[in-house]
């Protein structure tokens, strides 16, 4: 299937003297994490299907610096930010889409002060505009009537007040959207943010991802929809910890849309 993916780089566009419509910021998880790479590919398939002229930075992309900043290493964050901004500005990038809410938040909110001003969209927002503009169509297909609950990523929801785009996409699948006890601005964290992804948790009586997964399982979903590669990992681990992996799947919204079309 991989041969069918068209993934041009900014360098290739530049060589042809062209500008893509949008830059797809893949992010570290989307580039290297085995689970997240599937999300990346699902999103690319959708971009290809909709005929979006996009490009990636490829080997010129580097960590936004989000985990370093949240861990307290402002130096490393700003070094990463300034380097990335130099690359993005050299390519005269105007619009960026990313499937990672951490990259989304950092580039959108923390780069402007350092000289990087772009229109930044989360992939759920971008997919929604593709559907709204009729560039992409989606039918319920295999998700029709399925119970799906959406886990709000902190860095998309509370951090940036994006709550509806991912939900509207789920509804487009004609699925039954069920909400957890804590949702939208009250959403409970998956436990990965603030650089927690990269360390063991402090001593406590439970893991955060297990607590959140329990909330999800309480509403008896067939699918837990995620919009963040890190949430995806945490919820997947949570489902495993509860030994529910045969009943409940953790799937990114981009994968849902792509799978609905059997892409």
């Amino acid at each position, binding site marked *: 299937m991989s041969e069918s993916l068209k993934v041009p780089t900014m360098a290739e566009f530049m060589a042809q003297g062209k500008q893509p419509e949008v830059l797809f910021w893949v992010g570290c998880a989307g580039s290297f994490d085995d689970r997240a790479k599937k999300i990346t590919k699902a999103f690319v398939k959708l971009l290809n299907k909709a005929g979006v002229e996009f490009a990636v930075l490829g*080997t010129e992309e580097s960590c936004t610096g989000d985990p370093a900043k949240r*861990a307290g290493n402002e130096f490393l964050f700003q070094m990463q930010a300034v380097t990335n901004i130099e690359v993005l500005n050299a390519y005269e990038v105007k619009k960026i889409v990313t499937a990672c809410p951490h990259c989304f938040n950092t580039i959108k909110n923390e780069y402007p002060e350092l000289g990087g001003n772009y229109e930044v969209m989360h992939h759920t927002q971008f997919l929604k505009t593709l559907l709204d503009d009729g560039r992409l169509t989606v039918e319920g297909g295999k998700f029709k009537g399925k119970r799906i609950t959406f886990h709000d990523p902190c860095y998309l929801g509370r*951090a940036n007040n994006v709550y509806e785009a991912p939900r509207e996409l789920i509804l487009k699948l004609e699925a039954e959207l069920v909400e957890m006890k804590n949702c939208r601005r009250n959403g409970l964290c998956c436990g990965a*943010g603030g*650089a927690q992804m990269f360390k063991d948790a402090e001593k406590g009586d439970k893991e955060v991802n297990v607590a959140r997964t329990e909330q999800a399982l309480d509403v008896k979903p067939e699918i837990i929809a995620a919009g963040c590669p890190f949430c995806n990992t945490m919820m997947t681990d949570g489902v495993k910890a509860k030994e529910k992996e045969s009943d409940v799947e953790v799937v990114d919204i981009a994968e849902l849309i792509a799978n609905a079309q059997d892409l």
Partner: protein
Amino acid sequence: MQYLSNILFAILLIVGIGFFAKNVKKLIRNIKLGRDLDVNDHKSERWKNMAMIALGQSKMVRRPIAGILHAIVYVGFIIINIEVLEIVIDGLFGTHRIFSSIGNLYGVLIGAFEILAILVFVSVILFWIRRNIIKLKRFWKSEMTSWPKNDANYILYFEMVLMTLFIVMNATDSHFQDMNSGNLISQFVAPWFNGLSEGTIHFIERGAWWIHIVGIFIFLNYLYFSKHLHILLAFPNTYYGKINPKGQLDNLEAVTKEVKMMMDPNIDPFAAPAAGTEGEVPAKFGASDVQDLNWVQLLNAYTCTECGRCTSECPANQTGKKLSPRKIMMDTRDRLEEVGKNIDANNGEFKEDGKQLLDDYITKEELWACTSCNACVEACPVSIDPLSIILDMRRYLVMEQSAAPVELNNMMTNIENNGAPWPYNQMDRLNWKNE
């Protein structure tokens, strides 16, 4: 002799307000110990936030029971204070119910105050039951022992006593009862005093009147020492609260300067410092003590009323970790008070006391448990931002002390070396395309 009570009242008023003013001055001085922060932007949005969040209680009512009870006490507090104005004028000039000359409206006003007083009384009792009988979890966390626990109850007792005195004062005021206008509640209390001599009833009325106003002055001066300070500071705090998206954490300017220097090939790293800057101490990165925080963060600490909504929403706290955002705020205030007292005791200069906010109050274990999810910030009904303090303290740990947990150091080394938090080569970043 006939002016004795007027003079006594004037002295009381001056002492009560004088002490309060002195404490407000101290409060402002302590807040100004924080670093400067430019908050002159977004004026209209800030006014709107203050109107909605502080005046309009918009975030309080997200928890409807506590929110509605609180709204009653809050409205009662503001409106009943109109009555205090009359008490002050009467006290100073020896008049009696000076506003009663405005006619029917007076009855309407006092009637409204009486109803509010009863509603406040009932609400306060319910608050007390939630705290002490139902024992809501957030009021019984580990930081809510001794003073914080007692403080909360003292405030409730204060309000119960003040409201009772207000009703008794009206009930035993025969002149007011004879007017039979506005004594909506007190007319039912008045008969309790039947059978007492006129002199005794008058004595009770005067007693209730004096204890009521003295109680208000005591309460006013209690504020500085109490979590109840939020009734004043909620207003500036919501005005100066965060305007940017919650996910946006500030970029340290001192770091930006250094990073720009590092990246600029035209700057000679071995150059002598510019003339006049030799003695300058390089900026300290992050915060280990209250003076390293900015003044809005310190205002946040004084504004916190320890309701614990932040802590009850915190994923780390919910899963048994030591972190409690409320404790972060309480510790910051306690340490700031300690620093303030130190300054008072040493003629206006802070004398090194071998303590600091980090370790002596807030432990590393608490700081590293935060997921930066902003649940605490979202939950706070008065726009306090505990996350910003946690981040500033992490910055100190990492940039001044290199004291990050080992796994985080590995993550950061990976970012430095290969541009990803994991040990993958940057040149392999597009490999997924062909997998």
